[in-house]
């Protein structure tokens, strides 16, 4: 690890000021991604701005009909939150299957979406549910947030403060875990609100994406059988030693069908 200066501000504005004042400064949330890359010397920030001292950045609440999750809320806390379990159980289940115990007790929702790993789970939920990402300076729609592999709409020094989830009528997430890393090899989040169905796929391509054909079919009939005659084009999907793109295409469809079945019979 390369040497760095460590800051622990107690407010969002102080954190933003620190990030603006120093070149090569980055925020630190759970550190589950940032710290390993620093240890491997792949990242070498000169300044670390630890967000964990900022009160009010973590926690779960309702704002009218919207579920609000603070950026510093840990995966384990989302997974076990009574409120999330009651209002958006699919999200609690998703959080409960991220990584392992240790990771879930450190990693945060803000860190996860800011990082935008192509195989991360949260981005699928955020995109499928049409959530809003609130930062220190604005609110960004999910459809505009995830740009490409490890790339988001965040500006340098911009901090995610919370994520606002509108509540769907039915939703579920189904993940096929990479046997080695346990990240998603293909993860599909389906959300039905009124007649509208949004479906987001993670793990299969260079970044999370919405699967238009699946959405259309499910808008007509929100049943697993509606997907039986649909396939997804493998050519745009990733291939690596764990899964070729044809297999990923298969997994996307299988996970989509299973997610619809789960959404129809939650529990």
């Amino acid at each position, binding site marked *: 690890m390369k040497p760095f200066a460590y800051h622990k501000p107690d407010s969002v504005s102080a954190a933003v000021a620190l990030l603006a004042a120093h070149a090569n400064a980055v925020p630190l949330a759970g550190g589950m991604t940032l710290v390993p890359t620093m240890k491997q*010397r792949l990242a070498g920030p000169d300044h670390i701005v630890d967000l964990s001292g900022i009160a009010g950045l973590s926690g779960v609440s309702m704002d009218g009909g919207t579920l609000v999750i603070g950026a510093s809320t840990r995966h384990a806390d989302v997974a076990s939150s009574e409120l999330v379990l009651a209002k958006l159980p699919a999200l609690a289940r998703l959080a409960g299957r991220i990584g392992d115990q240790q990771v879930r007790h450190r990693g945060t929702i803000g860190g996860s979406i800011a990082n935008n790993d192509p195989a991360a789970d949260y981005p699928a939920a955020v995109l499928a549910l049409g959530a809003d990402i609130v930062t220190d300076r604005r609110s960004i729609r999910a459809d505009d947030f995830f740009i490409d592999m490890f790339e988001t709409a965040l500006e340098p020094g911009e901090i995610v403060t919370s994520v606002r989830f509108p509540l769907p009528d039915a939703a579920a997430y189904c993940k096929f875990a990479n*046997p*080695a*890393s346990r990240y998603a090899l293909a993860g599909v989040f389906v959300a039905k609100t009124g007649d509208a169905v949004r479906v987001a796929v993670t793990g299969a391509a260079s970044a999370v994406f919405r699967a238009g054909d699946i959405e259309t079919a499910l808008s007509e009939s929100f049943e697993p059988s509606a997907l039986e005659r649909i396939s997804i084009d493998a050519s745009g999907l990733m291939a690596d030693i764990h*899964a070729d793109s044809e*297999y990923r295409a*298969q997994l996307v469809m299988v996970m989509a069908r299973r997610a619809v079945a789960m959404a129809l019979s939650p529990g």
Partner: protein
Amino acid sequence: MSEVIGIGSSPKRKEDARFVRGRGNYVADIKRPNMLVGVFHRSEHAHAILKSVDVSAALAVPGVRAVFTGEDMKADNVGGLPVGWGIKGKDGEPMKEPPHPPMAHGKVRYVGDAIAFVVAETEEQAQAASELVVVDYEVLPAVVGLVDALKPGAPAIYDEVENNLCCDWHLGDAPAVEAAFRSAAHVASIELVNNRLIGNPLEPRAAIGEYDFATGQYTLWTTSQFPHVVRLLMGEMVLHIPQHKLRVVAPDVGGGFGVKQFHYAEEAVVTWAAGRLGGAVKWVCQRSEGFVSDAHGRDHVTEAELALDEAGKFLAMRVKTLANMGAYLSTFGPNIPTNLYAPLLSGVYVIPSIYCEVKCVFTNTVPVDAYRGAGRPEATFVVERLVDLAAREMGIDKIEIRKRNMISRESYPYQTPVLVEYDSGDPRGCLDRAEVLADVAGFEARRAEAASRGKYLGLGISTYVEACGLAPSRLAGQLGARGGLYESATVRVHPSGVVTVLIGTHNHGQGHETTFAQIVSDHLGVPFEDVSIVCGDTDRVQFGMGTYGSRSLVVGGAALAKANDKVILKGRKIAAHQLEAALDDIIFEKGEFSVAGTDRKKSFVEIAGSAYVPFDYPLETLEPGLEEQAFYDPVNFTYPGGAHFAEVEIDPETGVVTIMRYTAVDDVGTVINPMIVHGQLHGGIAQGIGQALFEHGVYDQTSGQLLSGSFMDYCMPRADNLPNFLLEQHSTTCTHTPMGVKGCGECGTIGSPAAIISAVVDALKPLGVSHVDMPATPNHIWNIIRSSSARLAAE
């Protein structure tokens, strides 16, 4: 409570008291005064000429004390890493044994080959400086695959090694095999791959070298399974340090699995650097560095055939294997796919003639060497796949064909056509019991139930035998071992009656501190808690060959039993003197020496105490003290064996293989500690399942980069991948080891891959699948299902 805890009991493991509290003492924990830290700069390319290595920028980093290169070591006359076992080819010529410098000079031959060693005051400084080492590479084409490496025109890894062929080796009677094949009613043939594995012990490797100017003494602390052998190989052959000037310490070591049973370059580099700098130099392997510098395992490509008569009786077997050596020969590299492979090809069967050819091949990959099972899982996999295939092709039930061909219990000792003579065993007994435990009778009903849920259920079987307890030295010598493979133990009875054992094996997770203490407690009648076991320090322990090849109990335990016998004899002599009786009249029982037929007796503690303060011993026949040393050289290998059943369910939509049941009945000879044996079998089976379903060392075929270079991509088996195992022992007693023990460390790893793949293939039987290569990953299985379904649809 002080009590005797003897053979057959399951006390909790002594060593765990410190391990579970985080009080172990590993090499990485050790700090020496003014210790410096070293980092290796390793090759980014699989094959390249080193045009220059510029270390000036690295040397300028504050805190950096030295940057050494392969040229520096060469200039200092440092030798190459030696091979402990040399084999000869079909033509009688010795294997090609090109030099293996601890750090490369002239050329690098795999991604991870060490180029420079940067020594600094802190690890951060050394790492920063290592990034500034500038290497001018002339990149050469690389070859990583076995078949490719032998092709004409393949990149030559060594100028002096034609076709990258290290050795073209064989064993068996080729004409007899040819004749048998000509008369066969059926021939089953198969091509298969034994996948490359990366061992990944929990504790990464580490080494500290230290040089003391005052005494001229070197010390090496290292994560080794055999410190005395490191002292011998590194001292005599690499660094030219006389063995009495070199101490090698392997303290607590967190798992080995073979990975730590070689003399590694890093050990020589830190020790040599310590001498150059006059102090202590430490290196701790990073996990990702381990992937490209720990020796890998397996990596075979094999064609095999089995000839049968019309009744399904085996007539002969023919096996042709290509074995990957990697870029250099590791300590036992060439021995594993030859001497530890071909002699096991008879399995538990009567096969009148066998012929095996093995080509050992150099490639631009990390050196390949022993990994738990070492040669024997590979042999078992070949035999069992062939037997399954023959059964299916001839329409014979796969359990039935095994029964027809098994060596019967009455036929032991059984001389195989491939060198080894099995002393004892009862394969049929193991199979019959396993068949019951696995509820084979109920399988078809379970298969139908799974089918009703749209899943494929498969039942797999594997039998196996292994040769372990390395090794009868005379035989090993004939096979090319460059030193004997005996073991030694000293039993030191202190005046208090408390016992310290100094033994030449090494404990790195197997529970030796417990097992060996039970043997002493049992034999000498002393309380279990009064026995402590010392290993892993060449200055404390006489000499020993270390731990590998399931040899510790078989060979080390035998030396210990012999030393116990000597202690008892000495104690009887002392008792005879004190009780004024004839030696023959002194009997030793339950920790007491007594005169037969009288109530005159002395306790073990009394004898021990008096042994150190005598004033009237007849010194010509009785010396003071109670300490004995024994060496044991086995007369044969031992042959544990068994029968394993696996039941797997396959989800055709995703290709996921789920293990529903796993049953094993093993013959490990006498069991000292049932709990520890159970643990060894569990770990071994988990590791074998890892090979069958998950683990794969994958190289990019063109660039020679390791694609599975971290746990993100190299899939280790985890608890949630495994069912509860149903295990039993069906032991026969080894006829030639003192306690009848056979060893159990590798059984699980040997029996399980073939059982799992047998089950996977059985599950896919409706699709006409006859073989599946390992690892049977979801993608791999789904591809097979898809192509087989398409083929069936077209037919």
